């Protein structure tokens, strides 16, 4: 009995020691004091938990950008200090950390969030405290907020281009399978809309719960409908078993079209070929983009992170987001939030980066940027099929009539509204 | 049946049967317990004695037959209700709360029958009744097996029952403890409590029982006074020398 208590006591000590070590180490943060000699950027990403595959890339993207900026003199002559929190793919932690970085650390801007749920969890906190959030991630679109800027891909970027490209190349009959939650449902709505706009025909649609990993009946339905294009909007580990099953028993020659795969979670490197053969994806960036800017970026990235498995589109978005913020602060001449927002809304804030030129659209707070259609081959190499330049994220402005320079409703809209 | 007999019959089982799946545990069992009786239920292992007890208390529902208590049909009455109308049981395995103290145990048992103001006094009364008032207030797991049995009898008495069912009250006890238990049971009966108990130990039975019912393969085998049963050759035979 005494031995047991001794073991318990030492176990506690070990745990306590680990805790304190972890708190003090990683070198990620210094204590947050209101130091006006530095510019403080909070980075809230998921480096553990379900979303860490992409979260780690984004964290690295922020780190690379900030290091480069500091090496070339910082912003307005001040060094940039990063305050990083791993939000553990947990919305509650996002809320806690948002409160902390805004109220306690008093940072100048937040770069963060992966899922829409996490963004919506902290958006009220950001708006209430008149803070500034850069959401550097693909999502279903529709955020119209005074304090939020979205640099990632939205349906106008990915879906309009994808459906245009695929229907033109392969034919009008389209079947959709999508994950049964917000992102899948809203994306599917967009696809349906774009099918109409391109003179196509929806021959079938299925929404699949996130835990499902058996697709035999779905594949049978697709076979029966004989589409020209299969749009796949599948998310998560369970649903990823679809590709292999499709490869075995699907329609040969019928291409898959997606906005979610390859460019984020680098499935083409993680799954064995030829699982993703004949998949098309419209992305705002992939590592395989062969331009001087992209190759240079990759070299610098691998110099800092030699073991990085893949540099995806959200990694680039985060990197670009930091640089866009820098440009806005330099134009405003200050880190004061309202001044920076004014600068961003001027329409003149641009960054020439690895993905091409990215410009903030003042009316919608979203990014005008290039979109690339890539095809995944049998050996899982990627071929660039088509490029659209400077695609505008204009759904909020032209369809919903919103101009954030005039009035900010601070809501998220969907095509259902 | 005369009305006079009816008034004096406290507990009655009428053709009670119990099946578990394909097994007939109790079959067509009749039993009449008079008020004030000290009645013993004996029989070889597996004869169905404990099953009969569980049917009486309501832990098992009967497959067929009826049970009457104080003239009222209680066949479909819940166990907790039966406990509240004057039926009390001490189980074979001590059903005491081992992690709790002596007094906490009694408090729990008496909780439904005594109001809060009298609870302390009632607790002490019951402890004294089973002569456990000299050992302080230990956690029950520190008490001896015999003490736990007496504690449980005290708990069973907290509802001021009209009938007390005892399932092997002397089980696991040495000769001194057995004698004490026998005295206790006699004393309680002398105060007017009707007692029905199950026992194996024929010496114990002879010390205290007045009437005996013998159960064999779930059926009533014999019934009578203690003397009649102890001298019954057929009973001796099924017990193979235990008598």
């Amino acid at each position, binding site marked *: 009995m005494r031995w047991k208590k001794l073991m*318990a006591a030492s176990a*506690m000590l070990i745990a306590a020691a*680990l*805790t304190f070590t*972890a*708190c*003090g180490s*990683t070198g*990620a*943060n210094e204590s947050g004091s209101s130091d006006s000699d530095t510019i403080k950027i909070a980075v809230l990403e998921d480096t*553990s938990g379900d979303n860490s595959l992409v979260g780690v890339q984004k964290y690295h993207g922020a780190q690379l950008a900030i290091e480069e900026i500091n090496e070339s003199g910082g912003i307005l002559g001040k060094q940039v200090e990063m305050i*990083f*929190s*791993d*939000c*553990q793919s*947990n*919305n*509650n932690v996002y*809320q*806690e950390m948002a*409160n*902390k970085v805004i109220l*306690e650390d008093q940072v100048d801007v937040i770069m963060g969030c992966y899922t*829409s*749920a996490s963004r919506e*969890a902290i958006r*009220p906190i950001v708006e209430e405290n008149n803070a500034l959030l850069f959401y550097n991630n693909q999502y279903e679109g529709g955020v119209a907020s005074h304090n939020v800027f979205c640099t990632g891909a939205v349906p106008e970027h990915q879906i309009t281009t994808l459906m245009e490209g695929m229907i033109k190349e392969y034919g009008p009959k389209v079947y959709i399978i999508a994950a049964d939650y*917000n992102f*899948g*449902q809203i994306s599917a709505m967009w696809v349906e809309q774009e099918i109409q706009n391109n003179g196509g025909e929806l021959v079938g649609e299925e*929404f699949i*719960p996130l835990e499902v990993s058996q697709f035999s009946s779905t594949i049978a339905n697709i076979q029966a409908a004989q589409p020209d294009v299969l749009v796949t909007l599948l998310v998560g580990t369970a649903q990823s078993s679809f590709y292999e099953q499709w490869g075995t028993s699907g329609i040969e020659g019928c291409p898959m079209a997606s906005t979610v795969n390859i460019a984020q979670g680098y499935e083409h490197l993680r799954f064995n070929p030829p699982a993703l053969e004949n998949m098309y994806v419209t992305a705002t960036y992939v590592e395989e983009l062969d331009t001087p800017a992209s190759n240079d970026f990759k070299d610098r990235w691998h110099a800092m992170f030699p073991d990085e498995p893949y540099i995806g589109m959200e990694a680039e978005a985060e990197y670009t987001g930091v640089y866009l913020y820098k440009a806005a602060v330099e134009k405003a001449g200050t880190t004061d939030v309202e001044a920076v927002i004014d600068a961003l809304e001027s329409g003149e804030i641009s960054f020439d980066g690895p993905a091409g030129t990215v410009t903030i659209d003042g009316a919608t707070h979203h990014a005008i940027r290039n979109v690339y259609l890539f095809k995944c081959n049998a050996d899982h190499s990627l071929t660039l099929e088509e490029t659209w330049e400077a695609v505008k994220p204009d759904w909020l402005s032209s369809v919903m009539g919103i101009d954030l320079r005039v009035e900010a409703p601070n*809501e*998220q809209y*969907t095509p*259902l509204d | 049946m005369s009305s006079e007999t009816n008034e004096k019959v406290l507990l009655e089982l009428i053709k009670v049967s119990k099946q578990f799946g394909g097994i007939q545990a109790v079959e067509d069992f009749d039993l009449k317990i008079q008020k004030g009786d000290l009645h013993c239920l004996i029989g070889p292992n597996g004869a169905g004695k404990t099953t009969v007890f569980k049917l009486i208390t309501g*832990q098992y529902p009967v497959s067929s037959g009826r049970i009457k208590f104080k003239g009222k049909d209680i066949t479909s009455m*819940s*166990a*907790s209700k039966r*406990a509240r109308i004057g039926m*009390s049981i001490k189980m074979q395995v001590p*059903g005491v*709360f*081992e992690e709790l*103290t002596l007094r*906490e145990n009694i*408090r*729990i048992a008496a*909780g*439904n029958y005594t109001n*809060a103001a009298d*609870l*302390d006094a009632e607790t002490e009364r019951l402890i004294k009744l089973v002569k456990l008032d000299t050992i*302080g*207030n*230990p956690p029950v797991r*520190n008490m001896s097996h015999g003490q736990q049995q007496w504690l449980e009898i005290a708990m069973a008495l*907290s509802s001021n029952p009209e009938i007390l069912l005892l399932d092997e009250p002397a089980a696991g006890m040495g000769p001194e403890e057995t004698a004490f238990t026998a005295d206790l049971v006699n004393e309680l009966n002398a105060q007017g409590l009707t007692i029905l108990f199950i026992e194996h130990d024929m010496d114990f039975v002879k010390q205290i029982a007045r009437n005996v019912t013998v159960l064999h393969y779930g059926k009533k085998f014999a019934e009578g006074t203690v003397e009649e049963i102890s001298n019954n050759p057929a009973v001796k035979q099924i017990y193979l020398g235990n008598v």
Partner: protein
Amino acid sequence: MRKTKMQFSLGSENIITVLLLVAGAILPFFLSTYRVSIFSYFFTSAILGLSISFIWGYTGIFSFGQAAFFGIGGYTYGILSKLFDNNALTPVALVAGVALAAAVAAILAWFMFYGGINDVFVGLITMCFTIALSTFLGQTAGSEWKIGDVSLGGFNGITKIPTLYFGSYKCDKVTFYYVTFLILAAIYIALLLLKKTKAGYSLLAIRENRTRSELFGYNVPKIQVIVFTIGGAIAGIAGVLYAAWGNYITPSNLDLSASTLVVVLVAAGGRKNPTAALIFTIAYSIIANTLSSSGSQYALVILGLILILVILFVPNGIITAAFDGIDSAWRKFTGKKTESEGGETA
């Protein structure tokens, strides 16, 4: 219900209770507004933990469903407060949230306990209920999932939930802290007082031996339904307060990992003792928050390790063990004997 005479023994636990309450009352004077606000959030977790301490620690009902009632409370408050669109009515939404959580708990309990279901199977059924509810809410992203014009929002949940107002007075950071603290303190003290009452003992009896309790005249299924309903109400309060604090609620607040975590925390602290559950839940929240703030990637690993170690070595709860340790060390020091060793009662 008349209470038996209270004997205030100066055990380590009672001292700690007083210290905790005093500390909670004066905390806002020593902390920044941010930290005060975060403590409100910790307190909602603690209230959820107390609901488990009540139904499991006191009564032996092992439920994986408390997060579901947390979520029902939070969602109801969110939907109603947005529907009313009137800050003065937020307390009404609060009460409705608690009431609905309690009602659902009552129905579920009625089916379970009067159906004779107990022990492991209650755990399974409540687990299934939680999974079903969170999955259902997760797929409500479409426009057809609206109540009035409040979208359920699927995985994104419901945003811009108004905070609590009393009349036109907004319960801002510090005020909200005191609202949460007072509710937590009230529930906590009620649980402590309950222990020594007849009702408290009946719960104890049911926890220790259900069948035997029935034979002592306790209507066990009825008591279990009442307890489970109250537990659901307490979890519902926690959910309402959380939604009002964070202005946000999602299905992830009521999924299986949320349900499991709180059970583990209460087990690790000491389930039979509300003080232990309270201390450990809050301590864990503080550690988790500190680890996350530090930016360490190993936060989840460390937290998991701590919980595993505690459950392995101190299965009755580490805080309970600490109390026992302090008590016995104190007795050795003063040479007093305990009741159980034959000494006098205090």
